């Protein structure tokens, strides 16, 4: 049985996408080993990682040493660096290849410009990217879209109490970056619910914010309990690409309004399977429209769900990775 070593983080994100890749590799018949750079760390590494020494030479040295130790023990056929290469030095990438592994980067945050990240780029056997803006003709890079996991993202039965507790007319779940705060402040006339981190920075939004952790099925239930789930992108982490949020909302049976990005038509038919907005005024108009037309909203959600399950699951993405690499 071939072995994949997945190097990624697992904490403090609103998506478990790297772990869901782990599950999809297992479903594809691989032995999957997960090496996290932020979970179950040795004490010293944890203290360093969580203080000012984050990204210091000492921190890098500890992570690189640990990844190599796991690779020497597990002898992977494939090393799948997922998210971005936050930590691995070029020498480590070379060492992993010397061990006989194919090393690929699954780049999701446009983080390729730091010296060690840029220097590592030509060393990978292949680069997959979630953003088509990073795919340059003639380079060994392939678009690997965001995805959903039907075992995690699925319509769940909800009681009336759960709907009241978790749902709202408009919900957003994620980090309260400044651009997202500005967008949500434009929607105060609606019953807005916010989950995640950082929303209490806005006095206008504080009362709409629930500071409870949201992971796993709770997120799925929130999407199912809400009339409109928003996908607000990050200014720093996406250019043309989408986050996995529209895919997760769709698979959960929810209705997603997403910021328009150039990659959207690659995955969903805009206006039929997914609705996009261009700015705050457009968002407000579309929220009001789809709240007033629940049948239309449900039809879009159903078409979006069917497309997500048909083409955009982690199982599909792993199959694509294995096909590209010739496994």
């Amino acid at each position: 049985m071939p072995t994949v070593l997945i190097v990624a983080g697992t904490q403090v994100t609103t998506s478990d996408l790297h772990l869901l890749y782990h599950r999809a590799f297992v479903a594809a018949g691989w032995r999957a080993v997960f090496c996290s750079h932020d979970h179950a760390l040795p004490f010293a590494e944890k203290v360093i990682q969580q203080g000012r020494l984050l990204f210091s030479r000492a921190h890098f040295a500890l992570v690189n040493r640990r990844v190599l130790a796991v690779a020497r023990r597990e002898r992977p056929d494939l090393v799948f660096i997922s998210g971005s290469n936050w930590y691995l030095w070029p020498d480590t990438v070379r060492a992993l290849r010397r061990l006989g592994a194919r090393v690929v980067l699954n780049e999701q945050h446009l983080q390729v410009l730091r010296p060690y990240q840029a220097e590592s780029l030509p060393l990978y056997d292949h680069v997959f990217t979630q953003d088509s803006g990073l795919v340059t003709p003639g380079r060994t890079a392939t678009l690997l879209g965001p995805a959903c996991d039907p075992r995690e993202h699925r319509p769940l039965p909800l009681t009336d109490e759960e709907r009241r507790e978790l749902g709202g007319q408009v919900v957003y779940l994620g980090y309260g970056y400044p651009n997202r705060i500005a967008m949500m402040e434009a929607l105060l006339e609606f019953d807005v619910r916010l989950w995640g981190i950082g929303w209490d920075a806005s006095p206008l939004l504080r009362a709409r914010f629930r500071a409870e952790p949201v992971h796993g099925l709770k997120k799925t239930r929130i999407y199912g309990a809400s009339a409109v789930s928003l996908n607000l992108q990050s200014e720093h982490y996406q250019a043309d690409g989408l986050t996995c949020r529209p895919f997760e909302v769709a698979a959960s049976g929810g209705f997603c309004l997403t910021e328009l990005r150039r990659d959207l038509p690659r995955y969903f038919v805009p206006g039929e399977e997914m609705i996009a907005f261009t700015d705050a005024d457009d968002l407000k108009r579309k929220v009001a429209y789809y709240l007033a037309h629940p049948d239309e909203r449900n039809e879009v959600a159903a078409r979006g769900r069917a497309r997500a399950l048909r083409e955009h699951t982690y199982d599909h993405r792993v199959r694509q990775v294995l096909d590209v690499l010739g496994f």
Partner: protein
Amino acid sequence: MYYLEHCLREAGVTSASAVTILRTSDEPWVYRDLRAELLDLFPDATVSVSAAEAVASPVDLLVAPFTDPPAFPQQDVAYRHLAELADWSQRLPRDCPLVLYRAAWREAEVVKPGALHALRRRKRREAACVRLLERTSWLRRLLRPLY
């Protein structure tokens, strides 16, 4: 939550029929969320919430949620529960795995049966080390959270 399934499987826990969540917090959402996740993972299991002194046997998985917010340097919130860990090491069934679930940063640590006493000793050493770091001003500056 595949995360929980993953952590349990890594620790060798692949099935459970009687799960008890220890009542460690006044936050109602943590019991609701954990119960839903555990029932999804083990659909045939009974999942109950109970104080440690009232855990009914048989039980084959225990979950102890900690809902405290992390603080400098986001040290393990389990450091604030050393007394409970000591109590549990005496009181809880020694043949049952225990999940220490830090809710705020979603970190689950599965303590193997009978290993709780050793874990408590390790956590006590780490907590002492963190206290030392916090008392030393230049170390405190160096290790204060970046974000």
